[in-house]
C-alpha cells in the first residue's frame, strides 16, 4: 500500500502532504505536553518495534506470506496521537532508507496508514468498546474489527487517491482494492486481537497506560 512517486497528481499529493504534516505537528505537540521529554525515547523504540514486527512474515494460505501494518495495535497500546507518530516515523524511514513509498507521496502514505490506519482505527476501537461494554470477549472482537476495518479503509483511501489523480478508474479500483484488502485485513485483525489478548494476559497494566 506504499504509494510510489509519480502515481498521484499535484493537487492530491500537496493536499495530503499538508494535511498529514499538520496532523503530525499537532500529535507531536500533544504527546510532548502529556509525556514531557519522556515521549522521545518511547516513541522511538515503539516505531522500531512496529518496524521489526512488520519484518516478521506470517504464513497465508497457498504458500504466500504477509506481514502486518500494526497501525491499530500501536494506537490501542499508546493512544491515537502516539499511534500516528509511530506510523509516520516508520513510513519516513521506509521511504528514506528502503524507498518503500515515494517522497512526494509520503503525505498520502502517512494519511492512509497513520491517520486512517492508526488514528481512525483507534476511534473505531473506542466506539466499539463503548457499544459492547460487558461482553466477555470485548477486547478480542473490538480489536479484530478495528484492525480489519483499518486495512480496508486505508486501502480504499489509497484507491480513491489514485482515482482522483486519474491513475485508476474509481468504479473498478475501489471495489477491487477494498475486496482484496478485506481478505488481507482478516490477518491484520486476528493478529491485532491476539497480540492485545497476549499483552492483557501477561501485563494488563500496560493496556492501562495513559493514551496520548
Amino acid at each position, binding site marked *: 500500500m506504499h504509494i510510489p512517486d509519480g502515481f498521484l497528481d499535484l493537487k492530491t499529493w500537496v493536499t495530503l502532504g499538508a494535511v498529514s504534516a499538520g496532523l*503530525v505537528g499537532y500529535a507531536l505537540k500533544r504527546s510532548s505536553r502529556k509525556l514531557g521529554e519522556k515521549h522521545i525515547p518511547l516513541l522511538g523504540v515503539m516505531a522500531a518495534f512496529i518496524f521489526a514486527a512488520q519484518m516478521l512474515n506470517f504464513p497465508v494460505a497457498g504458500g504466500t506470506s504477509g506481514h502486518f501494518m500494526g497501525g491499530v495495535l500501536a494506537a490501542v497500546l499508546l493512544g491515537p496521537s502516539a499511534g500516528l507518530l509511530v506510523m509516520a*516515523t516508520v513510513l519516513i524511514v521506509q521511504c528514506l532508507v528502503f524507498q518503500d513509498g515515494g517522497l512526494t507521496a509520503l503525505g498520502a502514505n502517512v494519511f492512509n496508514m497513520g491517520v486512517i490506519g492508526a488514528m481512525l482505527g483507534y476511534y473505531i476501537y473506542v466506539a466499539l468498546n463503548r457499544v459492547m461494554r460487558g461482553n466477555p470477549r470485548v477486547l478480542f472482537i473490538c480489536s479484530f474489527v478495528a484492525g480489519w476495518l483499518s486495512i480496508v479503509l486505508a486501502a480504499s483511501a489509497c484507491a480513491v487517491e489514485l482515482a482522483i489523480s486519474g491513475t485508476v478508474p474509481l468504479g473498478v*479500483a475501489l471495489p477491487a482494492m477494498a475486496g482484496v484488502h478485506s481478505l488481507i485485513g482478516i490477518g491484520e485483525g486476528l493478529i491485532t486481537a*491476539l*497480540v492485545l489478548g497476549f499483552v492483557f494476559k501477561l*501485563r494488563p497494566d500496560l493496556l492501562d497506560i495513559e493514551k496520548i
Partner: protein
Amino acid sequence: MEHSFLDKYSNLDSLIHRLDPRVKIISFLVYIIFVVLTLPHNLFRFVAYLTVIFMLILLSKVPLGYILKRSCIIIPFVLLIAVFIPFFKEGEVAGGYSFGTLRLTVTYSGLWILWNVSIKSWLAVLAMITLSSTTRFPEVLKGFERLYVPKVLIMVLSFMYRYIFVLIDESMRMERARRSRYFGGEHFRQLKVFANMIGLLFIRTYERGERVYQSMAARGFNGEILTLSHPTLRRNDVLFLVIFLASLVMIKIGRV
C-alpha cells in the same frame, strides 16, 4: 548484529558521498518534483532526466546493478495500475481481447497513464536509492534537522534508527527459537504463536524504552538536543547545487 542491510554503500568515498546532506536532500527533492510534474508526452525530458540520474550514479561509484535491482521495488504498484488499464474506456482503442462474452479493450489514453506512472516512479526511486546509498542515515537526519524539520521528530527518528538493529536482532532470535521448537500445526494456532511473539516483543520494547529514558534522565536529559557541530557549506556543495538545479531548469525549458 546485521548492519549492512540498511543504507548499503553509504560509506564509500566519492564526490557525491562528500556533499553536504542538505545539498543532496534539496537536489533530489527538486529532481523528484520536476520529474513528477513532467507531462507524459515529453519523451525528451524523461531521457534527459534519466541521463542526469545515471551520471550521478556513475559519479557516486555505487554499483549500477545494485541500484537497478533495488529499483524493482516499484514493480508491484506498476502492475496494480496495469491491471486497471483495460477499464479505462475513453479514447482511441489500441487493441482488445475477447474472453467469451467479456471484451477487454486497451485504449491509448490508458497506455499513456501506465507509461506515465512507470517512468516517473522509476526515475524517482532511482534518485531516492542514490540518496540513501550515498548518505548515511544519521547524516540524512542531520540534513533534515538543518532544513528546519522539527527537532523532536528528528530525535524520534534517530532513536528509531538506533533501536531498529536491536529489535530486529531480538525478533530474529525469537523467530529462530520458534522455528527450532515448533513444527507447524494448524493455521490458527500458528497465527497465535506468531501473535504471542509480537506481544512479547512489545512488552520487551516498552520496558526497554523505560530503561532508556531512565538512563537518559539520570544523565541530565531534559528534552533539549545539544549538538557540537556547526556545518558550513563548502565551495563544492554550492557548485554542485547550482549546476544540478541549472541543468534541471534547462531540461524543463529546453525544446528539441
